């Protein structure tokens, strides 16, 4: 049977249209409608409960599926932890639903101050300051656009998150991109900016702790000192690594020994902490400045009380023995999944709890996402342009809460799909 034309469509095709009728919107809707009509649309299926290792979700046709959940980044399980929920409930009772004001006006509560202090204590950086944001995305867009301006230079790893790119765009600085984790290429760019060895114009180098499409670690031990040697500042986004690695869970910068050299340490509350929002940890005067000059912070409502209290409790748990135990389980679980999959499928560069399974052609994305869900697995699929063409992938997020049996079942479903759809590696002859 001929496959539908819309299997070949990719996101980039609908980004814009030059006509005046917003045809990109109507064509994009036609794409989704066609997949829904054919019963193969697996995206946006509403969850019927919290982000636990097993979830129920409702498909577009109304059917409910019991799914292994490898598509949520509730890495340590704190999103559904009883004590975290209790803390959030108590804050809800006392402070109400929303903060109801900008953080620089009346939106800051004692809860926010407590969270800031807990973050500094945990990071072991008492001379720094914290700027809280109501989304992790906004930490990057707000911070970068606040501290960088026209004619400044921003040098970004090509695999960096969209929020960093958008922050650079808002700053209207001169943007440079270095090949992913390519320290020699970064050096080449810094030498172009600073031919005599020291940048004369403000320059910011942006990298990440763990990259979300590939699950590999940033080479911070090399990137950070290199940038500093040129007099550049460094922003490290630890969205997918904060509380997950490092001797005390402070992230990849701690693990690689450069934590105290990072100028802008960016974390999110939506991953390991199981909530929403994020924070910048920076020099105290810089954090205060960002509080006032990050437009998306200044002109939005403060982080809501229930989430703030829940995140604070999650951080307290994560900073102690509970967190250490969960980190150990997370590392063990991730290794189990990688070991189970590596002989049969391409895991790319992954060495972390983000395990991408590269299936290749974009035109497998719709049937694969549908097939996995119907087989009982929810994984997060990514294709061009989020990743290179013909390198589309299922992104599996391992958590500390998955059991050995759940991981084995996940691997079996993926291996089965790989055999069925033709992206399995040849079996080794014994």
């Amino acid at each position, binding site marked *: 049977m001929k496959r539908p*034309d*819309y299997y*070949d*469509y990719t996101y980039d*095709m*609908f*980004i*814009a*249209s*030059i*006509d005046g*009728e917003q*045809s*990109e919107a*109507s*064509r994009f809707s036609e794409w989704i409608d066609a997949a829904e009509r054919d019963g193969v649309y697996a995206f946006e299926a509403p969850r019927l409960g919290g982000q636990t290792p097993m979830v129920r979700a409702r498909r577009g046709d109304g059917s409910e599926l019991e799914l292994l959940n490898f598509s949520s980044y509730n890495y340590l399980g704190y999103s559904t932890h009883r004590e975290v929920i209790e803390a959030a409930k108590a804050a809800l009772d006392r402070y109400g639903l929303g903060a109801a004001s900008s953080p620089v006006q009346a939106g800051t509560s004692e809860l926010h101050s407590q969270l800031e202090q807990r973050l500094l204590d945990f990071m072991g950086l008492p001379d720094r300051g914290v700027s809280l944001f109501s989304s992790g995305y906004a930490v990057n867009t707000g911070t970068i656009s606040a501290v960088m301006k026209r004619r400044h230079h921003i040098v970004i790893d*090509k695999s960096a998150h969209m929020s960093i*790119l*958008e922050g*650079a*765009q808002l700053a209207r600085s*001169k*943007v440079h*991109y270095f*090949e992913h984790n390519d320290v020699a290429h970064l050096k080449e760019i810094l030498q172009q900016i600073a031919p005599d060895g020291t940048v004369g114009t403000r320059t910011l180098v942006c990298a990440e702790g763990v990259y979300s499409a590939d699950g590999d670690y940033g080479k911070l031990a090399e990137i950070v000192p290199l940038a500093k040697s040129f007099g550049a500042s460094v922003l490290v986004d630890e969205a997918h690594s904060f509380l997950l690695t490092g001797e005390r869970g402070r992230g990849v910068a701690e693990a690689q020994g450069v934590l105290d050299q990072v100028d802008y340490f960016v974390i999110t509350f939506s991953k390991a902490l199981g909530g929403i929002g994020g924070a910048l940890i920076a020099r105290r005067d810089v954090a205060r400045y960002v509080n006032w000059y990050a437009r998306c912070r200044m002109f939005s409502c403060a982080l809501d009380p229930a989430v703030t209290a829940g995140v604070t409790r999650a951080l307290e748990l994560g900073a102690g023995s509970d967190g250490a135990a969960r980190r150990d389980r997370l590392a063990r679980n991730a290794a189990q999944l990688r070991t189970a999959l590596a002989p049969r499928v391409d895991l790319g560069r992954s060495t972390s709890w983000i395990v991408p399974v590269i299936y*290749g*052609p974009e035109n497998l994305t719709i049937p694969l996402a549908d097939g996995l869900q119907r087989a009982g697995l929810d994984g997060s699929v990514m294709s061009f*342009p989020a990743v*290179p*063409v*013909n*390198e589309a992938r299922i992104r599996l997020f391992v958590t500390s809460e998955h059991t050995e049996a759940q991981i084995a079942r996940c691997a079996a479903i993926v291996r089965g799909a790989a055999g069925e759809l033709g992206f399995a590696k040849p079996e080794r002859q014994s």
Partner: protein
Amino acid sequence: MSTATQPDRFARVGDDPLVIEWHVQKHIMFTWEIDIEALDPFVPDELTAVEVRPGIGLFSVATLLYQPNQFRPGSPPFLELVSVAHVQADLSVKMPMSRFAMHAISVYSDSPDFIDQEAEKLFTPTTLDPSLTLTFTENWDGVDAADQDGPIISFRNTNPNPVYTPDELWGQHYNDTHGLHFGVWEWDGVKCEHMQRGNAGKFFPHPFFKGMDLSRLHGCYRQMIPKPGSTAVERFYKTRQLRR
């Protein structure tokens, strides 16, 4: 060249009839990242350059060796070298979903017949360059272009294990020589398309680039190479004038 000899589904797209069908022997297209500020001067005001990352547009150079006998029995094979800016498509056009929309910047060919056809049917600004040479590598995965003014490009595939798949691509093309023109194209053949990093080649200063600042080019974004021994077909549909 032949017209409308293919199955019905290629005879027309929307209201536009097929006007040209080219048979291609070898072809390579590499797409490069370029500072959008360096690309914008080559893009008409009515169009918008694709921006794949903030500040970064796409510039492609394609090389084509066409099969013989396309204009008349015994007419020789001929060459085309084309550079384009990637622009946003017009999605209101009734056609299969457009994969790429491209605005022609510079087109060279060694064939007077080709020049005539392009001018008559597509209004493409093609320059006759009898000294144009395209030297494809043995595996058809690299090409050097040169002419009497010197080398123009040297491209090399960076994928050590290319996987070739049959494909049918639809797209849109624009040119702005005698007013702004728009048309639909279709390509089918067997190719490897990839974005693997590596040293994909270089550009040489040459009049072909019409003064574009080549120092604003960055790495290679995407490569398309044909399966060795395969052939491809390119189809062009009746163009429309958008501006005089």
